[in-house]
């Protein structure tokens, strides 16, 4: 998960990478909408969208194994829900259609994500007049994700190095303590970030 976040292919310079972020976001949205709104039986159209996405994937020069692995990681959730559809009349058709639609959309979003930096998307959100408070929340979250991941890793290591008992019950308490410690540190950091924002003239 952590490695996925630090997606190394987001900084390449292919044709797709160089497209402006608003264009890519719009393209992805249109593609997802089209896929979702297509009638379930329109197989050729589904295939067409799939072919289009494959072309984009080739142009983006993101390694296919990377896209494939991410798709596999995201797929189980979709399959889980689609399986439920099997339990009804003409369930197989619904199941296949759902699977096709969700896979196409997943592929589309993974492509968007592999070629666009989240910071650029944030700029688009800002321009689309998403409320400032929400954009600030998103930006701060994205900024501190990595910092908090590293902090979690350090806390876990420190705990483990001083833990000599095993057992599930113990493991739960220990992990919960780490989560609590993480929250305490996060709220202290939030105070310091607030001070830093004020120091540079921030007014809410």
């Amino acid at each position: 998960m952590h490695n996925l976040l630090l997606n190394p292919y987001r900084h390449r310079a292919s044709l797709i990478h160089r497209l402006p972020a608003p264009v890519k976001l719009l393209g992805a949205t249109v593609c997802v909408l089209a896929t979702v709104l297509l009638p379930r039986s329109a197989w050729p159209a589904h295939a067409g969208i799939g072919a289009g996405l494959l072309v984009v994937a080739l142009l983006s020069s993101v390694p296919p194994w990377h896209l494939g692995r991410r798709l596999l990681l995201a797929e189980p959730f979709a399959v889980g829900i689609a399986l439920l559809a099997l339990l009804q009349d003409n369930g197989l058709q619904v199941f296949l259609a759902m699977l096709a639609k969700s896979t196409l959309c997943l592929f589309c979003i993974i492509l968007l994500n592999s070629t666009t930096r989240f910071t650029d998307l944030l700029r688009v959100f800002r321009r689309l007049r998403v409320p400032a408070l929400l954009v600030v929340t998103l930006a701060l979250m994205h900024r501190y994700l990595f910092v908090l991941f590293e902090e979690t890793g350090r806390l876990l290591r420190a705990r483990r190095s001083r833990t000599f008992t095993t057992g599930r019950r113990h493991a739960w308490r220990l992990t919960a303590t780490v989560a609590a410690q993480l929250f305490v540190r996060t709220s202290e950091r939030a105070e310091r970030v607030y001070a830093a924002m004020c120091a540079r003239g921030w007014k809410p």
Partner: protein
Amino acid sequence: MHIPDGFLDAKTAVASGGLAVAGIGIALHSVRRAAAARRVPLIGLAAAFVFAAQMLNFPVAGGTSGHLIGAILVAVLLGPSGAVLAMTAVLVVQCFMFADGGVTALGANIFNMAIVAPGVGYVIYAGVWRAVGDSLRSRLFATAFAAWCSTVVASILCAGQLAFSGTVAWQVAFPAMAGIHMVIALGEAVISTLVVAAVAKARPELLALSRETPARPRYTELTAYGLLVSLGLVVFVAPFASGWPDGLEKVAVMLGFEPKAAATPLLAAPLPNYTIPGFGSAIPSTIVAGGVGTLVAFVVAYVLARALTPRVDAANRRGPGGASSRA
């Protein structure tokens, strides 16, 4: 519970999107009105915290492990509106960075997990806490019970949206989603309570709703969330309420005739929990199953709260901020 793209039809996506926008609007309004500028960075960092905390594994059995969902935890620590914004940010990032949850289903996912879960959870938490009394133990009990209820309600709404879209029949979606999540919710309750107990021990003043913090919500705010959740239930769940009787029987029949489907792990686990043998008609068994589930959650919450509080409620009385150091 993240609905992917392609599972909701246009009317459901738009309707739940509208409800989500309304919910975020309430949250933005009350955070702004509270003029708690101090809390703005905290909301953003709490969203990152949820994300990081979701990476922590809690071993369950046979090599599998569960993780925190976090809605009720942030609601207890930040108050409902802060939690709505933090969870919204989590879902947006999950959608756009991890392809976890669809773009067209973002509204529905935000409504279920970022508005209903913390909203319902907080109302129950505040209600139970006040009813039981002002102590750490009652707070932990309230946390556990609220965590369970909020997770289950969110999953029922998720089932309603799938059924409303005509993707998965209610008779299948409801028992499957609610059944699985009644179990998952127990895990969520235990983890959330453990974390809240640990925070209360380390820094008791961090818990929201203690008398002096600005996070204490106003009743109008809670009422607004309550109305919104009710609206969601009326739109997505009420139309199917009449379909319960023959529904469960139908599933049972189908399961009987379809051994292949019955063997899928998704359904095999929850259904035996959910339909209680000896009840012919499905309505009473649904009610009984729901009642038993709630009772189990209640007992688990009580046992947890008792186990996690020292005899004398000393942790709650320590002076605020006494231990924190500043240079």
